[in-house]
């Protein structure tokens, strides 16, 4: 298990808290499941980085993937029809889309 990917994943999660908060204000409570997933993933990733436990790393990887999935499920109704405001969500989507790649890389490489 390579810790480098976990640390990069942690950095991405911290950054996505900032971009997520900004779009949370535009979207409201609709993004709550995604926001909760980010917080759980952040806690699990921190735990994995500081303890180095394999179980924590697996939990972090699963939660990071859930973060990506919830971002798309919660934002799909908006980005489907909103051509003008969709760019406002692009930074957050770009960040969270990195997470599954980093999560799998951390476990498999």
């Amino acid at each position, binding site marked *: 298990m390579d810790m480098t990917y976990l640390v990069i994943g942690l950095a991405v999660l911290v950054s996505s808290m900032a971009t997520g908060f900004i779009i949370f204000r*535009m*979207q409201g*409570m*609709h993004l709550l499941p995604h926001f909760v997933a980010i917080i759980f993933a952040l806690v699990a990733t921190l735990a994995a980085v500081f303890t180095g436990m394999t179980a924590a790393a697996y939990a972090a990887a699963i939660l990071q993937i859930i973060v990506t999935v919830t971002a798309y499920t919660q934002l799909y*109704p908006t980005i489907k*029809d*909103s*051509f*003008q405001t969709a760019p406002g969500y692009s930074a957050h989507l770009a960040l969270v889309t990195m997470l599954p790649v980093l999560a799998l890389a951390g476990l498999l490489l």
Partner: protein
Amino acid sequence: MVKTVKALGIRAPNAEILVGNVLKDLDTPGEEVRFIVSPGAETGMDAVARKYGYMIEVTKREKEAEIRMVPSGKTTEEIDVTGETCPGPVMIVGDKLSCLATGERFKVKSKSADTLADVSAAITAAGSRVVGQGTEGDRHFITVEKAEKKAEAAGAAAHISKDRVVVAQSNGIGNAERAYATFIFSKVALSMGKKVTIFLLMDGVGIARKGNAETVKHPAFPVLSQLMDDVIRAGATVYVCELSASFRGIKEVDLVAGVKLAGAATFIQFLSDPGNAVVNF
């Protein structure tokens, strides 16, 4: 109920005799009565009021005076809107006004003078009147009287009364605040007696796609679909721009009930009409 008797042209002391006879022969003894009389005819009415157990309130206007005979001991109905946030107070008072007959009064109380200023503006715009104001303890109050909205004088071409509001919404659910503002402003306009038309165009058409408005919820407000429903049921017309809908692959069957597809000409017609106040969200 408040009985209204118009007695313009009758001078004092004949007006006193008329008022006395009306109060004496009321179908419902103790009923509140307002008399519209010529200026000056209100002289001596205090004695008539006392004789029949009434309190008197006189309001003088340019070409008439209003004498309100209120049974002694009768209290004015009160509504306290303290703690309500916009558009709550305006909606509550609008609902109350719609249930009253012309001439009836009630008191609106609030801890916030700003709230009452907003309510006063809505009342005046709807054609009714604020006939009194003041403070009682920690509450500010206004006394509201239901009145019929006067028709604009013929020939007053320079003054256009904007009784119709067109709300153009082009941001859709991608911006929850603007989406909420569209329907909250519409709701307030409807409660002020305005005719409301909402035009959804560009990203705004997404609001009308089935299931989309259900996904927008702010903790301080009801879910967006509920607000949209309320506004449609209250009489607002909601148009969806046909071009923008086609652009997004939205067909008529994908739209929520109560909205209509409309072309650019309809929108331009609304924009061109000087009687329409246009708001953009």
